[in-house]
């Protein structure tokens, strides 16, 4: 028997009314803390909490939110993806170099960038599901591989530009609503629907909850796991393309800022790091939480060091609040 067992002990049965309330408790707490942080912002900068500004913030959260789609799926199966840093950077560099800013090459550029994500995810998934390599090691190793390949491909200096359409999606507005926010919410709605309604979605929860039970129920665990890593790679590639559009160019290390916040967003949203429980709705709130936190820290007049300390402290505090609120419900 080569199945890995990672079923935490004493876990309550899923899908009961009690655990549903427990799952809602985490995003609920995060929402309350978001409200607190916005209040602090309003006190510091009167007029901060306006429809336009909140919309702008929500749009900015889209980059983190989209890359965290993949991380949510992967973590739901009990895995983790640390390779998104250089998959984001690599696909962004491929996209700008191929298109060079020309609309006529847009489709080719997007296909090539997504191919990077697809291959990255496939290699991760096969290594993890078929060769039983631990997800941390596999994705860490592949992150290095993509870093090396990106450096070789760009020769150390990314070139090219982004076609206007991508710039519009990444930075444009429809009235007060950022285009990226709409794009993100449409993607998010699809992800939530797939997770909640389709067979594949239910199987994904099953694999994360108990690989053994899932396997014995006739689910091809391997396929589900490989699938989640492929989607994670694709989400990272999409983020690379959009972030290149936002910055006007690709640059080395552009993906580094997303890795740890993506994991934090998933966990703050109430998804269990052991897999099997949670969902993307919570991650959306987690991404908003981290974006508001970063913004609040950037308008407070404190040094970079203190900012880092508060950032980490707030995440720990939010996790503890989540834990307490879940304990209350149980």
């Amino acid at each position, binding site marked *: 028997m080569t199945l890995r067992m990672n079923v935490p002990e004493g876990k309550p049965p899923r899908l009961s009314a009690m655990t549903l309330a427990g799952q809602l408790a985490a995003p609920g707490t995060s929402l309350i803390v978001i409200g607190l942080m916005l209040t602090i912002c309003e006190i510091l900068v009167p007029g901060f909490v306006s429809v336009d500004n909140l919309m702008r913030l929500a749009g900015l959260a889209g980059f983190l939110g989209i890359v965290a789609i993949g991380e949510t799926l992967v973590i739901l199966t009990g895995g983790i993806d640390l390779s998104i840093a250089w998959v984001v950077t690599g696909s962004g560099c491929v996209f700008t170099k191929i298109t060079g800013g020309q609309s006529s090459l847009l489709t080719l550029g997007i296909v090539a960038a997504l191919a990077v994500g697809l291959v990255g995810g496939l290699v991760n998934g096969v290594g993890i599901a078929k060769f039983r390599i*631990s997800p941390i090691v596999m994705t860490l190793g592949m992150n290095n591989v993509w870093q090396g390949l990106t450096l070789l491909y760009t020769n150390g200096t990314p070139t090219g530009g982004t076609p206007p359409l991508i710039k519009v999606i990444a930075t444009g507005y429809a009235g007060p609503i950022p285009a990226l926010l709409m794009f993100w919410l449409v993607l998010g709605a699809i992800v939530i629907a797939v997770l909640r309604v389709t067979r594949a979605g239910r199987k994904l929860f099953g694999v994360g909850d108990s690989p053994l039970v899932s396997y014995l129920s006739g689910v091809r665990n391997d396929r589900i796991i490989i699938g989640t890593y492929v989607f994670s790679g694709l989400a990272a590639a999409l983020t690379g393309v959009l972030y290149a559009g936002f910055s006007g160019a690709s640059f080395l290390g552009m993906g580094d800022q997303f890795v740890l916040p993506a994991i934090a967003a998933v966990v703050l949203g109430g998804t269990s790091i052991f897999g099997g429980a949670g969902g993307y709705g919570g991650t959306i709130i987690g991404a908003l939480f981290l974006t508001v936190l970063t913004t609040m820290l950037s308008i407070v007049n404190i040094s970079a060091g203190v900012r880092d300390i508060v950032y980490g402290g707030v995440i720990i505090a939010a996790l*503890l609040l989540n834990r307490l609120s879940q304990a209350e419900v149980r």
Partner: protein
Amino acid sequence: MKGYLEEIRNTEATGPAAVFLFLLLADVVLKGGRYTEFDAETLAANALPLVLVALGQYFVILVRGIDLSLGPVMSVSSTLAAVLFPLGTVPALLVAIGSGALAGTVNGLLVTRLTLSPIIVTLATMSIWDGVSLVVLPTPGGVIPPALQAALTSSSVVLPVPILLLIATTGVGAWIMSTRFGLHLRAFGGDDAAAKASGVAVRRIQFTAYVIAGLFAALGGIYSAVATSAGSPIIGDGYILSSIAAVVVGGVPLIGGRGSPIGVTMGALTLSIIGSLLYFANLSDFYQSLINGVILVVVVGAVAARDMIWKAVAG
């Protein structure tokens, strides 16, 4: 003493040692067969911070944890030492080492008392220690006592000091694993429920692993500050993931309970020697991370493949 010798002979380190010796041989060949004491000293000095932080990471991984904050802990001790050295070498060293113990204590308490997942806890504390080091010293600098630097990097003793330190730190790791405490670490990592039933104080064991990790990381930060003549708030960032990589290349599976400190040192040396090999093979630096990644995946994949074949053959 017997347990100590057994720990030294631990066969778990054989594979990683073979990989390192093979690369060392390649290095010697590329240098035209001339491998001086100076070459060995340089390798040891370059590898020492990674060896130290990887040994720390090893203890956490033994108890099925992971510590993403060890790199930033190095930054904290590096900056604290460099800022405090003018007040006296010994107090500065004590405070810097103490900062590692304190960081490990915080991590350990959050993981064991509040039962938060190690990856999430250390993700958050990573940001906190990074911030602390930036507050202590915003840009690389500070003062390193020349006498201390001379003592820790000199080559005048029997063996060059970096090599002696490398052997000593690995020895300390092996000694810890030869004690009853080491046995309990393994027991917890192997099966925490069984360990608890056998009367092991599991929470304390798990907690202590994080404290030891913080101590080793702090020593790594101090050594890198001394060796480079400056404290740096970003020195640790490069070690966050490479400390895990070194442990894994050292033959330690992330499932806990297995592996040996000697293997971990071999893993750290393997990752360190690759840079030297690439330089002499006249390959661009761009290949470094690529090759590191491939080695990481191939080493672990090979072990997995061997196990699968073994199972197939054994039925």
